[in-house]
């Protein structure tokens, strides 16, 4: 007979699930903690796969369809594993005027990626953000969390080369 387990086990014994469990417990496993819990999974693993969604949905007692719906609604969540390095280009109004399209074109030409894509070799993911609140520095991009303000395409490409080759 099907028995609803109150606290499902994490899909794997990876230690990173611990931080997810902490967040869910903090919110009393309330269905309202769905977004917080998905944030915790993505912080720990970098993306949300089906197992993770199923685990979170069952833990919080929400339908998997709802967890999937939330995960796909918000731009911040991603269902695909990200590349080793992350480049975010701000596509907000100020950055648009200051030429962020040139940055995107340059990235596309050099690495063959559009926004929300990862290079074939899995080294670089390109993302966009809608105004990160520092328009005075437009156009702005971040590489692995480091901000590059008033960045030219040459500078951005040089930074990426440094990051990509420094680690390979």
């Amino acid at each position: 007979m099907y028995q609803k387990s109150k606290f499902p086990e994490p899909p794997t014994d990876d230690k990173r699930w611990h931080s997810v469990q902490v967040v869910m417990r903090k919110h009393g496993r309330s269905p309202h903690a769905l977004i917080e819990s998905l944030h915790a999974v993505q912080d720990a693993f970098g993306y949300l796969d089906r197992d993770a969604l199923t685990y979170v949905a069952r833990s919080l007692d929400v339908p998997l369809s709802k967890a999937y719906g939330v995960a796909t609604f918000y731009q911040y969540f991603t269902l695909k594993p990200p590349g080793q390095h992350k480049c975010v280009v701000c596509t907000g109004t100020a950055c648009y005027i200051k030429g962020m399209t040139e940055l995107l074109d340059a990235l596309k030409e050099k690495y063959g990626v559009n926004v929300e894509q990862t290079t074939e070799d899995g080294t670089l993911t390109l993302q966009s953000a809608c105004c990160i609140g520092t328009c005075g520095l437009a156009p702005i991009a971040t590489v692995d969390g480091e901000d590059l303000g008033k960045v030219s395409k040459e500078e951005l490409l040089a930074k990426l080369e440094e990051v990509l080759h420094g680690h390979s």
Partner: protein
Amino acid sequence: MVTLEDLSDIRDRVQHELASHKHRIHVCVAAGCIASGSKDVLQAFRNEILSRQLTDKCIVKGVGCMGPCAGSPVIAIEPDGVMYCNVTVDDVPEIMNSLGKQPVARLQMNTDQPFFTRQKKIVLENSGKIDPDEIDDYIAAKGYHSLYKVLSSMSPVEVIAEVIKSGLRGRGGGGYPTGLKWTTVAKTGAQEKYIVCNADEGDPGAFMDRSVLESDPHRVLEGMAIAAYAVGADHGYIYIRAEYPLAYERLRKAIQQAEETTFLGRRIMGTTFNFHIELRLGAGAYVCGEETALIASIEGGRGTPQTTSSLPSRTRLVWENQLSLTTSRPLPTFPQFYATAGIGLRLSVPREAKAQRSSHLQATSRTSD
């Protein structure tokens, strides 16, 4: 029990410490300046002061946004009032040499321009002056004095009357009169009421919320606590967008500090008033700045707006509010009133008030008329 003397003691201590240093160097550590390397500049000043053995004469402080973010990193030398922009680590020795002498002309910002001279900061009065990570700095700037005053000498009705008199209006776009909103919320017989602060600043190019959240987070908390007292809420949420990680972090720290000093949490300042604030992180959806979508998101769902009624008799009521002191006649009783960063009010009137908060939120989100 916290007394006015406790607050004054902290104020005197901080002010004495500041006054005992001849030169105070303020380095902006808000998002814009951090992005251009202000943290390195801050560290360079610290090192330089240590190596020159000037610790009793000079003090360096990380402060919030000073305004001219395009010139970041921005620093200010107080009490001289000299501002420098585009400062790099290499400029630090030269600036140190110039202290008490002629300012470094090539880096100096002209403060005699309309941006500075025609601007009167009210909500951002502490921004760029205090260290956002230090609750004592905020108290020294008369922070939490209004909350003390409200809790110790005013009834909720008097607080609301004051807000009505001030003419304060919402800043989220609609300009709804805040006093009216508070009156409606206060009068409703709901068992549980919530204050929701809309800090989901989605519009590109707008960063008034960012500035106050990153530069003066306690101000937002104090404003929410006063609003909660006035309307009878005991729980609040701040919904903040994921693109502002620094603001999130500073608020998190501020809440922790405020709880430790009993300015938030249970039995605030030794009174019977309880008020808890939780943070909620957005996930990159512009529409979640809209009030009904925002609440759906706080409740863990997709941020889809819904049509709601604004009549208190309906089952579900949603009132979102942004507060700021917009009146030209500053509120007489609160010399420095509350914050701007979308402070919202959410009021729910469930058909049967549920005892459990968690199920309550769910219940209100599901029930329709």
